[in-house]
């Protein structure tokens, strides 16, 4: 029983240590052979997933887990001789963090399995798997840390690994250009995040989120820091009108990477929520900040979907849909923020709107990941992403077609798939806040369906084209990767309340309960 108890006690640290070890050892093991390297990468990601499951189970059962690095005991967040200040790097894993870590690990595992075959024909795989595992480290670190500077470090790991993966196909100049755009914008965003952290540190002599939150005055400098943090992270999440990098980067990255970049973007979305709810909480002007998120959300929904419709590159089209879907999350959580200061409205519809937005995060990661993987499967067999050149693949790629249909129906919000469940929660709750916003959200869903009907027709329908006469279904590992995500899309759609009760409601409650978040750190002396 020593191993399980040790694993449980150090799960927050292991959640990062395992993929980090996996990443750095991958190039070394790659020298022994591709089979050993691949097995090692799969093992590292599988272990990460298992640790995430253990950690999430523990958090949901016992509440927030605090892990102070270097302390005599991991839960001692405030040393006795520190004057009441949490000086160490501290991970604060509440239900929201656990939720994010869990689904990021699931998508990461599916993506890695898929990559075994999809990348098998490319060179530089040592670097590919190392970067994929490093991206995992960045994402998991961002969602688990309770320290602002530490958050910045993981944001940078996320950005650097992401940019390198976008430019992975170095033989194509546009891929490098897309990677450069992603890197430059991420760097500027990271700089602003760092500057905002400096402003907060200068005022409150602390970097711990809970500590700063307990001292928050909402001064002019705090407002500047808030704007920098929210706008920089919204840009990283791909919110309109700062989304321009998204179609460039998503379309040029290998499809498996794109599926994971969606999760990386959602880690930034998590950052916005953590800043707004846990760092500032009721100190901020909830209505104004809420409406900023809502406006960004509505713009993202509408511009994203209307830009997707005329696209001819399937991955570029899907990238615009990713922007559009991010809008739903911003809308749902934005409504929650707007009514945060009014307990009656929060109870009446604010909580459900937030739960809908948070539920949409995991649903989007599953179905958008699935759709990007199907796009990758088509590219793997045909060598093109051009919708004008594709057609008739339903004859030869039946499983890919079925997986695409599941993903397309889910993203369009068609019941009984998971996208419908979270969108319904958003529609109903947002309607009570402002009916027009809800109507816009529904219209965007209809346009999404129209767009994916076009994609489905273009790729799979029609007679079997002579140039694709020899095309056959993709190998089993790619199908398994898609199958894992498709399974979650279906299960989350059929049993949505179980997911909401188990993961979403605790996550939303953890975000709203700023007092609880602060007490989990400062109460640990």
């Amino acid at each position, binding site marked *: 029983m020593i191993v399980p108890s040790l694993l449980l006690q150090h799960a927050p640290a292991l959640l990062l240590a395992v993929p980090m070890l996996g990443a750095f050892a991958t190039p070394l093991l790659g020298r022994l052979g591709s089979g050993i390297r691949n097995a090692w990468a799969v093992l590292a990601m599988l272990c990460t997933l298992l640790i995430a499951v253990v950690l999430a189970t523990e958090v949901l059962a016992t509440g927030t887990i605090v892990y102070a690095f270097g302390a005599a005991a991991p839960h001692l967040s405030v040393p006795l001789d520190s004057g009441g200040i949490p000086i160490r790097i501290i991970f604060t894993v509440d239900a929201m963090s656990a939720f994010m870590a869990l689904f990021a690990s699931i998508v990461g595992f599916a993506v890695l399995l898929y990559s075994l075959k999809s990348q098998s024909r490319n060179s530089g795989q040592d670097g590919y798997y190392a970067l994929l595992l490093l991206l995992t480290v960045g994402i998991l670190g961002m969602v688990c840390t309770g320290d602002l500077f530490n958050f910045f470090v993981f944001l940078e790991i996320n950005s650097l690994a992401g940019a390198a993966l976008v430019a992975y196909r170095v033989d194509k100049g546009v891929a490098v250009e897309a990677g*450069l*755009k992603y890197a*430059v*914008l991420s760097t*500027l*965003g990271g700089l*602003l995040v760092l500057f905002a952290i400096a402003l907060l540190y200068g005022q409150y002599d602390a970097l711990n989120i809970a500590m700063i939150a307990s001292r928050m005055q909402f001064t*002019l400098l705090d*407002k*500047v820091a*808030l*704007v*920098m943090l*929210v*706008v*920089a992270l*919204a*840009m990283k999440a791909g919110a309109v*009108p700062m989304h*321009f*990098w998204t*179609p460039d980067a998503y379309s040029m990255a290998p499809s498996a990477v794109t599926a994971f970049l969606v999760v990386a973007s959602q880690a930034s979305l998590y950052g916005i929520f953590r800043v707004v709810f846990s760092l500032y909480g009721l100190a901020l*002007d909830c209505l*104004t*900040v809420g409406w*900023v998120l809502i406006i960004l959300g509505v713009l993202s929904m509408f*511009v994203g979907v*209307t*830009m997707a*419709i*005329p696209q*001819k590159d399937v991955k570029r089209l899907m990238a615009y849909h990713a922007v559009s879907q991010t809008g739903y999350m911003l809308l749902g959580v934005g409504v929650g923020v707007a009514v945060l200061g009014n307990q009656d409205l929060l109870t*009446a*519809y604010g909580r*459900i709107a937030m739960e809908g937005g948070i539920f949409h995060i995991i649903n989007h990661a599953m179905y958008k990941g699935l759709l990007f993987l199907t796009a990758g499967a088509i590219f793997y067999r045909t060598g093109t992403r051009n*919708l*004008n050149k*594709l057609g*008739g693949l339903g004859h030869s790629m039946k499983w890919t077609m079925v997986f695409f249909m599941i993903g397309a129906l889910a993203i369009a919000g068609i*019941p*009984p798939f998971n996208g*419908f*469940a979270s969108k*319904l*929660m958003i529609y*109903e*709750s947002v309607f009570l806040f402002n009916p027009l916003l809800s109507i816009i959200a529904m219209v965007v869903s209809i346009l999404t369906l*129209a767009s994916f009907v*076009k994609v489905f*027709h*273009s790729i799979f329908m*029609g007679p*079997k*084209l*002579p140039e694709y006469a020899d095309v056959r279904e993709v190998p089993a590992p790619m199908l398994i990767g898609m199958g894992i995500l498709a399974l979650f899309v279906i299960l989350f759609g*059929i*049993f*949505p*309340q179980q997911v*909401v009760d188990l993961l979403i409601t605790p996550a939303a409650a953890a975000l709203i309960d700023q007092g609880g978040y602060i007490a989990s750190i400062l109460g640990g002396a």
Partner: protein
Amino acid sequence: MAAIMTLQTGTGFWNPIIWIIAFVIAFVFAYLIWMLGEKDPKKTGDLIRPYLSGNPEPAKEAVHVPGGNLYWGFTEALQGYYTRVVPLHSGILTDYLLWFLGVMAFVLVLVGVIV
């Protein structure tokens, strides 16, 4: 079983059971129709060729409607919107940076930092 599938949405509820039953029935019907079809259709000859009023069958590429042709009417009707929005996606990095910084300046005004 049906109860655990019910999603509470605050003001209402949703249960996917009817949709699942509808999906299953539709699938069964489709399968039955498929079963009624010819078990071993001929793969060659005139029977597999479509009848187009006596005209010769065009090449497969010629009859396939590619993706670019779909929703032409939609994009044409929203030409005013698209002519403004599409050029914003210029692909130029400095444009992207300007949008980013511009949005930040706008939000700074909105939250009352700059008056």
